[in-house]
């Protein structure tokens, strides 16, 4: 028989460090809870309020779908999402080329590209919408631009990553054949990133359908405007219909995108 060997997964130092991390996490949670300032009366009241809201929403006011032009608002939402996605793709391509470090060799330009991508993403679509409503006035145009500018970051970043991950072999072969840079981009890079490009375009359109139904709250067109109006007028049955419409359209968009991705890519 051999002597008893001791084995422990962590050293005492590591165990102490792990305990410190757990303790830190718990205290952070308790601290944040204390800053939320929960009012107990409202919290106890919540189930009753929820029930009340639902009774006021019932029955769903299906008649207003045509009467109050909710159908048109819904179509406008889809248009904003689609046009915004197309705008984003056009704007994202040059920025992606700028920030891919295997295509643009200058770190300064890469940094500029990445800066554009990050600024597009850090600004929320509602904030973009407020900005463009100020510029173009309320309506679908502002919404389209808001969706477009918001999506540059997402599309550009993913496209730049796809560009950076291409197989360098074919690129080298085309350069060795004396192809000009743009031809190398078209015949060497594009065929390799095309599946990723169409994939991210569809994915972004799916996201944009959801985003464009919200930006109407600040007047940037689409079903959000109808929702805002209905909320302000306490037409809860109409609110219920609009929420149902948004839900349906988002589900349909999701199904369509999944189907297309399965069949094309």
């Amino acid at each position, binding site marked *: 028989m051999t002597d008893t060997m001791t084995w422990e997964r962590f050293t005492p130092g590591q165990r102490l460090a792990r305990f410190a991390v757990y303790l830190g996490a718990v205290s952070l949670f308790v601290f944040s809870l204390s800053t939320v300032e929960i009012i107990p009366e409202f919290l106890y009241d919540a189930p009753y309020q929820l029930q009340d809201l639902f009774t006021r929403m019932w029955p769903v006011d299906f008649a207003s779908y045509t009467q109050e032009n909710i159908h048109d608002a819904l179509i406008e939402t889809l248009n904003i999402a689609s046009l915004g996605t197309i705008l984003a793709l056009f704007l994202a391509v040059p920025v992606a080329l700028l920030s891919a470090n295997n295509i643009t060799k200058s770190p300064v330009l890469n940094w500029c590209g990445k800066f554009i991508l990050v600024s597009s993403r850090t600004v929320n679509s509602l904030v973009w919408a407020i900005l463009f409503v100020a510029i173009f006035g309320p309506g679908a145009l502002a919404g389209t631009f808001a969706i477009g500018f918001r999506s540059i970051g997402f599309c550009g970043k993913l496209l730049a990553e796809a560009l950076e991950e291409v197989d360098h072999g074919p690129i*080298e*072969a*085309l350069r*060795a*054949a*004396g*192809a000009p840079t743009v*031809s190398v981009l*078209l015949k060497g890079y594009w065929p390799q990133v095309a599946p990723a490009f169409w994939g991210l375009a569809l994915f972004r359109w799916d996201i944009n359908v959801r985003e464009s139904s919200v930006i109407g709250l600040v007047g940037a067109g689409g079903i959000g405007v109808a929702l805002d109006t209905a909320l302000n007028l306490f037409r809860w049955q109409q609110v219920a219909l609009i929420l149902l419409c948004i839900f349906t359209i988002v589900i349909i968009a999701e199904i369509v995108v999944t189907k297309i991705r399965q069949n094309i890519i």
Partner: protein
Amino acid sequence: MSVENTIKGNGATRSLLIENLEKEYVKGKPVLKGLSFEVSGEETVGIIGPSGTGKSTLLRCINRLIEPTKGSITVAGQDITKCSGKDLRMARRHIGMVFQEYNLVERLSVIENVLCGRLGYIPVWRAWLRKFDQADINRAFQLIEHVGLGEFATQRADSLSGGQRQRVGIARAMMQSPDVIMADEPTSSLDPKTSVEIMELLKKVSSTEHIPVLINIHDVNLAKRFCDRIIGMSKGKIIFDGTPSELKDSHLSEIYGGEDWLS
């Protein structure tokens, strides 16, 4: 093969002259230490040597995918080392290159991969819209037939086997109407039988196109069997340059080191 192509190949212009070529990746540590040789006519030259001795660097210096540090490289009478920008692109069109990993654009068809050999000759908008010259398209089909892939012309490159892909790579290089073809380990990813077929094809290309072919190769026996001339490199220097029959075990032991493996 097209008529004008044969006329153009008058031997004298289809040559490669390398003088005192040096390459340092890190200053003071040369990988290539003053190489000089000349290749012309329909010569098939096998470059042998251990891994890491600078064979690939040598080929990539010739078309300036890698910048040479010193020396001159003359292809068809033009000093490549003095070219830059557009001139370099124009010069590269006359140097065909075949790669170990084939380097095809996987998602394009065989015919389009072969037509990619013309990208240096056609404007960008034509490449974009796939408006290739009819003459180029005809020649591409001829070449695909020539390398034995007639029935695969419209298939995607990623549906082909290794040997077939390498044939496409060779057709693409020929499509450039080059003055010299360089092959960087063209058989290293292939099985022995396919390797022989590819070497036969390269040999045939040399004689039908009337151009010299430079082949980096690991397999000494293949090199001896198919090449008219062998250049043996070791530690960045040429230490053998002669016909396969002149290459003796003593040379091989000098190139690769040791002699136990020779039997």
